[in-house]
């Protein structure tokens, strides 16, 4: 019958019967690594495209996984071989959270609104979807109305309606700016995780063990413009430390057992520790069985004994507003003790602080170290740190030996990617055709010439043999797959997979 119809049409028509319906073009996200696949999300066609790079002879073919709505943002689920995908259904302005595995969508949660930001707990069990503070200005095409204080908390180990709890946070006029999950904390005799939601001048605490209970909203300042920036948890002390741009105080929330008049079984108590300048970063460390707080405020560091509110100030010669805490020896002390590296991005020089007895020894526990201005600092294994310099080049900083091994480069190394599993630092400069690497064992640099410019770099440590994948800015799809152990041998380029089967669709 079909052929007869065709024939009739052919006999009756001398010209074309009309135009064709053009399929929608792809709008692809940045690639992600998932298990042994490179994954792209197509926002126009509501699907995930997976390229298997784990086999011994990968083929330029894509697996497609249909998504129930348009993918908006993606994060890797902590501790799992899964991606968490925020989906947006523009028809009814509703949102979904999909858990994407290597071969299928494993779970879909109805989270109500078209949230555009997602935070998850360290163990990957909990996820909290919320509206980012600048959403309205960035994404005008979304829902007409939205409640910026609405959130959805998802228990990713649960199924059904009970897995999602939607609520609107109490607000004093501002909107959530940031969300953090606490590590497990034993509070009022029960181990639980808390969610801390940052507002401009207040924080909200939500007990994940008892989502049916109301949250706490703690106003830290009535003046506004506080600008909360950092949070540190001290589970052993049942304390939460907070910093703000607009205050020189360290805000301390002590989590105490609640009285009978509370629905919750704990309640926070606010305390403020004054420092002499605006603190930018802080870490909690333990020394002689006592927990202390090290705070950096650019020109000085303060050690705070929160139990006694005693503050010890250590002036810094090299500016340092960021702290990297580590435990190890030093050139002058073989004892493994807590020590800290203080630095400021964009400034030359760093400072080592030996935290043992620092309240008594103060500047004698301080050592300056000259280093080119730092663009980023990434911890490596064995108390080594990768310092990426503003002036180009890298340094491998040995925190125990307090030495720096420079790696010079002809290009900007902003895209340097350390891979602890492969014991290499990979340098994948965008637009270049050369992939560089440094072997952390002997700091020997090497490189591989590719056929196409570099767009993205992905590392696959979970494949049968660790691999690295470089994607190329080619609209038909191109990736180069290299052995992480021996990048110079056995590489292969897959070309055209984004258009594979295009004539059959």
């Amino acid at each position: 019958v079909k052929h007869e119809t065709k024939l009739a049409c052919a006999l009756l028509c001398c010209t074309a019967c009309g135009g064709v319906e053009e399929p929608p073009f792809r709008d692809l996200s940045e690639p992600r690594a998932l298990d042994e696949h490179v994954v792209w999300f197509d926002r126009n066609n509501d699907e995930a495209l997976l390229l298997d790079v784990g086999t011994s002879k990968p083929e330029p073919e894509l697996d497609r996984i249909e998504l129930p709505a348009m993918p908006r943002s993606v994060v890797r689920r902590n501790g799992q071989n899964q991606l968490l995908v925020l989906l947006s259904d523009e028809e009814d302005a509703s949102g979904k959270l999909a858990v994407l595995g290597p071969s299928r969508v494993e779970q879909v949660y109805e989270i109500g609104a078209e949230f555009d930001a997602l935070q998850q707990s360290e163990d990957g069990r909990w996820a909290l979807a919320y509206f980012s503070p600048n959403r309205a200005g960035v994404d005008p095409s979304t829902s007409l109305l939205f409640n910026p204080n609405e959130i959805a908390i998802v228990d990713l180990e649960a199924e059904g309606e009970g897995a999602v709890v939607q609520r609107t946070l109490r607000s004093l006029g501002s909107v959530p700016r940031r969300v953090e999950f606490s590590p497990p904390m034993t509070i009022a005799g029960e181990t639980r995780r808390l969610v801390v939601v940052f507002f401009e001048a207040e924080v909200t605490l939500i007990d994940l063990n008892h989502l049916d209970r109301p949250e706490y909203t703690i106003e830290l300042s009535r003046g506004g413009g506080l600008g909360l920036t950092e949070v540190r948890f001290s589970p052993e002390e049942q304390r939460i430390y907070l910093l703000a741009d607009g205050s020189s105080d360290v805000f301390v929330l002590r989590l105490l057992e609640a009285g009978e008049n509370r629905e919750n079984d704990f309640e926070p108590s606010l305390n403020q520790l004054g420092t002499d300048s605006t603190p930018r970063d802080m870490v909690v460390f333990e020394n002689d069985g006592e927990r202390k707080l090290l705070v950096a405020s650019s020109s000085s560091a303060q050690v705070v004994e929160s139990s006694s509110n005693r503050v010890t100030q250590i002036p810094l010669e090299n500016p340092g507003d960021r702290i990297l805490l580590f435990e190890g020896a030093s050139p002058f002390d073989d004892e493994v003790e807590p020590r800290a590296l203080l630095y400021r991005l964009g400034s030359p020089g760093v400072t080592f602080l030996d935290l043992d007895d620092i309240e008594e020894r103060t500047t004698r526990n301080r050592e300056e170290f000259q280093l080119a201005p730092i663009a980023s600092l990434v911890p490596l294994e064995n108390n080594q740190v990768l310092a990426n310099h503003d002036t180009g080049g890298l340094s491998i900083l040995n925190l125990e030996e307090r030495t720096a091994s420079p790696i010079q480069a002809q290009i900007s190394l902003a895209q340097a990617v350390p891979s602890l599993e492969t014991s290499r630092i990979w340098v994948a400069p965008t637009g270049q055709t050369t992939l560089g690497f440094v072997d952390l064992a002997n700091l020997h640099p090497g490189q591989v010439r590719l056929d196409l410019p570099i767009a993205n770099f992905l590392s696959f440590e979970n494949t049968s043999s660790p691999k690295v994948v470089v994607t190329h800015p080619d609209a038909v799809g191109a990736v180069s797959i290299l052995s992480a152990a021996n990048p110079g041998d056995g590489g292969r380029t897959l070309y055209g997979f984004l258009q594979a089967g295009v004539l059959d669709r």
Partner: protein
Amino acid sequence: MNRASWTAAWLLPGFALFPLHAAAEPTAVPPTTETPNPAAPAEEKRTPTETATKSPAPELPPAPPASTEVAGAKQPSGPDSTATASLPPQEPEGPLPPLVSFLRVELAVDNQWNEDPGYDFFDGDDVGTLVGLRGEVEVLEFSADVLLALELGYASGVNGDGELDLAFGDPSWTERRVFAGIVPRYEPLDWLGLHVRLHGGASFSTAEFVAQGREVEENTLDPFVAAGAGFSLQPPRLRTSKTRLRFNSVAFGIQFEGGYSFAPALALAFPDRTANGVDQRLPQSGADLGSIDRAGPYFSVSGFARF
């Protein structure tokens, strides 16, 4: 088959011998001389009778002078040849021989429907056009109005305005066909012919496009077959010669045909490349782009000249 006149017995080779007949065509045979031409096949004698049933002989023109001599005519030899040569040529008398035609030349435009979505990559609509030339010779006459012809032909076309995906550019699909066919024809009326056409041959296809600056070209050679039917319209034939031999008439007409064509699907792929250390550092595996089903209906319009 009883009435089948096996002109094919000599027409097939006669297709090649045609210049010989054409040279003999002007020879005028005196009507008084009923001696059959030994060079002419016996079947030819039946042709006027059979053809006359569908093409009545036109009215006789005035007889030319008997002394008219036709240039190029082969003079008979023998004892009477001198006397015969000295006599003025005699004009044939009686009805003119019937119009005979056995050769057809067609200029055809074939519209091939390609409903496979993959074809849209090359062409914005579903129709690919081939322009070609066909030659057809009538080899078998079953009756006065039923005959069988064989054809040879060539057609080609280029399609390349498809822009379904921005990742590709300059798509072009060139197809060339060489084919042979068999065409039974039935002519119930002087001006109307019906036919069925079965043909097949080789299709040379070149598919080209540019992907991100890289030119991709795929050449294929595939067989194809097609079957169709249609009709032709032709005005009365014009006499070009007063003989009963070939090419004593010409007719121009138009033919319409619809049918269905079968051909293997066209598969396209990015090429695999081996590393050479110079311009290809890593071996490359190219993706298969899929295939285009080339079977589909066609509609053909052709203008023809029939001799």
